């Protein structure tokens, strides 16, 4: 499924269309949007889709208790996989790293270890304990080619594989972290990534990473 452009079609935003439906825009804007709706199929479809959704939410059937419990069961199963989200910001000479644990929504400051080579940023190393194992992520920047090399090391030497996703797409997989720790394909300076750690095919834990770089 292509999730990239699912809801960014046409010239008008969903917010604009919602306000138009509720009649909460000025007369000029209302007329302008009406004209766009008559000339843009994508906008018109999106507009009808929002109207349809609002109607169905109000008039549609409620879920049975059995159905609701089955979905909540799926959520419970999913939530049992430990997940940590890291936000790494590199702004000129400073680096800020924060993490959000799945149970705690607020971001927390964590230990970072980095060095500078002249005015160039040096490697960034982040260590976190996840699911009883200490995971160290080392990002080595290459400012000329504008990318990072990522190395993942685990304190406990186990046969664990690491699947790296960049912007939701499979990027690279390391089959056994006890034998190899460096991802060969460099990472972009910006963007969201995800590391999925598996043991014998079962997901053990996941780490989401958002990189933001202002040179």
């Amino acid at each position, binding site marked *: *499924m292509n*999730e990239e452009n*699912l*809801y960014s079609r046409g010239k008008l*935003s*969903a*917010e604009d*269309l*919602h306000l138009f439906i509720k009649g909460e825009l000025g007369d000029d804007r209302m007329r302008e949007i*009406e004209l766009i*709706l*008559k*000339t*843009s*199929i994508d906008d*018109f*479809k*999106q507009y*009808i*889709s*929002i*109207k*349809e*959704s*609002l*109607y*169905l*939410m*109000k*008039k*549609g*059937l*409620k*879920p*049975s208790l059995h*159905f*609701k419990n*089955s*979905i*909540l069961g*799926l*959520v*419970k199963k*999913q*939530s049992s*996989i430990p*997940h940590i989200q890291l936000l790494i910001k590199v702004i000129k000479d400073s680096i800020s790293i924060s993490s959000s644990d*799945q*149970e705690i*929504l607020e971001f927390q400051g964590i230990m970072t270890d980095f060095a500078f080579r002249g005015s160039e940023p040096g490697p960034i190393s982040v260590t976190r304990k996840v699911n009883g194992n200490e995971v160290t992520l080392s990002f080595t920047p290459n400012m000329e080619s504008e990318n990072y090399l990522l190395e993942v090391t685990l304190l406990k030497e186990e046969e664990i594989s690491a699947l790296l996703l960049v912007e*939701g797409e499979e990027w690279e997989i390391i089959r056994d972290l006890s034998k190899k720790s460096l991802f060969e394909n460099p990472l972009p300076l910006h963007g969201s990534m*995800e590391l999925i750690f598996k043991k014998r095919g079962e997901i053990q834990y*996941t780490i*989401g990473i958002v990189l933001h770089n202002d040179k």
Partner: protein
Amino acid sequence: MNPEDFSNMMSGLLSGNENSWSFFIDSFYPLIRGKISKMAPHLDVDDTAQEVYMQLINNDYRALRKVEGGFPAFLNFLIAVIENVAKSQIAKHSRFSQKIDHQKDIETNLEDKRYSIEIEFFRKEEEGFFTHIISQLDLTYLEVMQLRSKGYKAREIAEILKISQNTVLTKMRRGKEKIKKILDSEIKS
């Protein structure tokens, strides 16, 4: 749904909070079920609805993490997910029931690839023609006809558009007449 409630719901969904998921199921199930029923009445609606929820839950809520914007943008996102799931279920269903010959499938795929540029050209042409026609009609006519094409009954269209059922029926009849007139004049010219 006000922006604060929506934002709280989203944070809760992404962290697997049971109350948020419970609220989400109660609030959006009517939409998910209703949309599936209109798109594919022959499918088991709850099975397909479950697939939709699984798409949102799987891989640590990856699909949900991509949602940007507020409640209206989320509606569009959700509709797109429902449509994708329903389409894939319809395809699965028809593959099993029609027992399509494997070789025929391969030939069709080759054919589709070979003519994809032409198909795209004609699609664009048709879209342009359609835009030309609809730009000559009032918005209410278009709304009525679009909702009708999605399988809504006159009573439902009346409720969605907040107009009387008689007006819906009149708009449907007059809309068809108007389109016929436009098409006739296009053909003559």
